[in-house]
């Protein structure tokens, strides 16, 4: 959540979910629509930046894809550290993947509390007829944990744009709410800074003498 000199807000968004639920496709679909004149196959779909303009504010989303295989689950923390938002993707035709989302929610709540905006995305709605995760269950679960729920289809390009847009709005709101407390905290840090000896004496960024 850094603010670049030009007034751009940088938000970090992490994509979590089991392998094969379509995280990468979702990300590509979102980026593709903005840059549809480019050859998509040349993009590295693991880390992408997307610039947005919301309420006159310039925003840059850094979207981090993660490896979804179970064996990489333990790596979660180093990816979602300092995230402003998380998109938890499951496959509506795969109940296990929804269970995995629940695990992520639990873990994120525990580690990051309410600092992070959570979005749950039921992907592959183009396969509605094969759905195994009940609509009501998914939505009521999302409600319960305070996450927004979206249905998406990376294939048909449904719900993708809306998902990212809403996520960004929420992150911006949260950021603006927190900014006041941030300011207080920062000034406190500066006071402490001045008291530390030797090597940090010249390190208080805003020293005015």
């Amino acid at each position, binding site marked *: 959540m850094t603010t670049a000199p030009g007034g751009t807000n940088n938000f970090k968004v992490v994509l979590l979910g089991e392998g094969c639920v379509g995280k990468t496709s979702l990300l590509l679909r979102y980026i593709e629509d903005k840059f549809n004149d480019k050859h998509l196959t040349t993009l590295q779909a693991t880390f992408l*930046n997307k610039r947005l303009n919301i309420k006159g504010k310039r925003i840059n989303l850094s979207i981090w*894809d993660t490896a979804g295989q179970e064996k990489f689950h333990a790596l979660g923390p180093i990816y979602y550290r300092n995230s402003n938002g998380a998109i938890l993707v499951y496959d509506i035709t795969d109940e296990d993947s929804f269970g995995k989302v629940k695990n992520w929610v639990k873990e994120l709540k525990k580690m990051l509390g309410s600092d992070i905006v959570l979005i749950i995305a039921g992907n592959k709605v183009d396969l509605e007829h094969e759905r195994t995760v009940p609509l009501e269950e998914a939505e009521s679960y999302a409600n319960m944990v305070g996450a927004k729920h979206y249905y998406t289809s990376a294939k048909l390009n449904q719900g993708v744009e809306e998902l990212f847009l809403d996520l960004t709005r929420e992150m911006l709101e949260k950021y603006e709410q927190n900014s006041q407390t941030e300011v207080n905290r920062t000034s406190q840090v500066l006071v402490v800074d001045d008291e530390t000896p030797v090597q940090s004496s010249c390190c208080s960024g805003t020293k005015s003498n």
Partner: protein
Amino acid sequence: MMWFKKLFRGKCEKRTEDTAGSSKDEWINKFDYLNIFKEAEDGCSIATEALEVVQTEPREIYALTTIRNFRGDTLDEFVCESEWVLVTPDQFSEPRFQRHLTRTDTLTALCKTVADSNLNKKRAEIIAKSPNCHCHETAGRVRALRGGRSTRGAGAAIRAYALHLAQDKSTTFAQNIDNFIACTLDSKETCPQVMMRNMRQFMSGMKNYLVKHGEREFEKEVEKERLKLKPTEFLNLDAILEGVMHRVVVVPLRARLYARLAAWHARDVRRLHAALERAAHATPLQLGVKETTKVPSSAVLAVISKHFLKMQEADSPLDKLENLLAAISVMFNAIRGERSLGADDLLPVLAWTVARCRLVCAELEAELMAGLLPPALLAGEGGYYLTALFSAVAVLKRLVPEPGADTATPWRRGSSDSGRAGAGAGAAVVRVVLPDECRGNIRHVPVPCRPGARARDLCRALAHAAHITNPQDYALFALHDGHETMLNENDCPQEVMSEKSGQNFTLAYRRIDAKIAWPQQALLSYP
């Protein structure tokens, strides 16, 4: 999307495909990194870029183009019909140029820009410009930080002046830096993270000091350069000073920092080393690479290895990061097929690549970059791929069970338990005698060693275990019957040992120039 590539030699205007074939091997020998493309021609389908190599003058120059289905009948066709760029071998091997190769769109854009700005194409000799990709802003930030450090342009004078200030011991700037370095070297702090945090804080602080407060003529110098700027240019003071700080703070502390890192992460390094030994035999599938995903060929691995090596050698964390990104780019470039690759593909392949390149120091380097780079940089692309490196290390380390508390410092433990494992060619652990020249004592160190491991592998592990920062001065010696024989780096210590079984025989790792009279007991302590 298949791109064609050809290798050419000779005058730009005249040569045809015929001569290309005969000289290809020569070219490849000359620049072994071209192996990456040799394989492409063999039909191994990594040719996702067009690469034309043309020798236009007595000097070697590469011409890269993005033309598709290039038949190569005439070079005129190539020169006139395609968009292309000429680079020298040095420029070509630069990380930022290598990064172009990962994305054809930026390469195309680059060629286009160059072509547009150079009417006289045949004379064009262009320095590779950085990839200009809309979706990688933070990569731009890496470059921006780097750009300020170039020796040309407006930044150079300011850089030179700041370095001059650091030299002049009467300035507050220089005194602060000297104080900080002296304090850090004196400090008993063993945690490298704390050390790096202090360094980072100090560097940011000194940058602020110069910009906000100034010293001597610094502000005038900035003003002078500012007036020279064109309306479209600006001075990125932050970037210029970041480079200066790396030079005056990171470089003098480099050896200490590595020693701290190596000591702090001794267990991790040992575990990673053992894991790499194991992973060397693992199939890509076992590391989680999907069946549909290719892994880099050995030729590509050689290129990646070079970037990893440069990463280790670089002083500045920014240079390290650039080389890491270049290595990952080359890797991506090699495995990219029709399908887009996500993190599901990246991570296992990176782990596999790290294992194949035997990047024992991966974790230390990652820690160093994470600890010293400006935080803003770590929020973007650089941070992502650095995280990927951390993850790859974590994935690999899990191949070896975490050592229990009782084995927390086995390097320093007595030599009673695992010694027996030393004999025999198939041993998993060999024990090596390590003389400590500072303390004047001898340690026995068990080293994980896969069957057939070379002396150089052992040396690498030992250098880490012993926190040796100048491994090039060290070698492995066989001690037997009062003689010392230096092992060549390709010797297999286990084979040497099995040949000598039955004799008093010990391996020692010592400075090549050290002259040591070994105690009888050290040689007898185990057969």
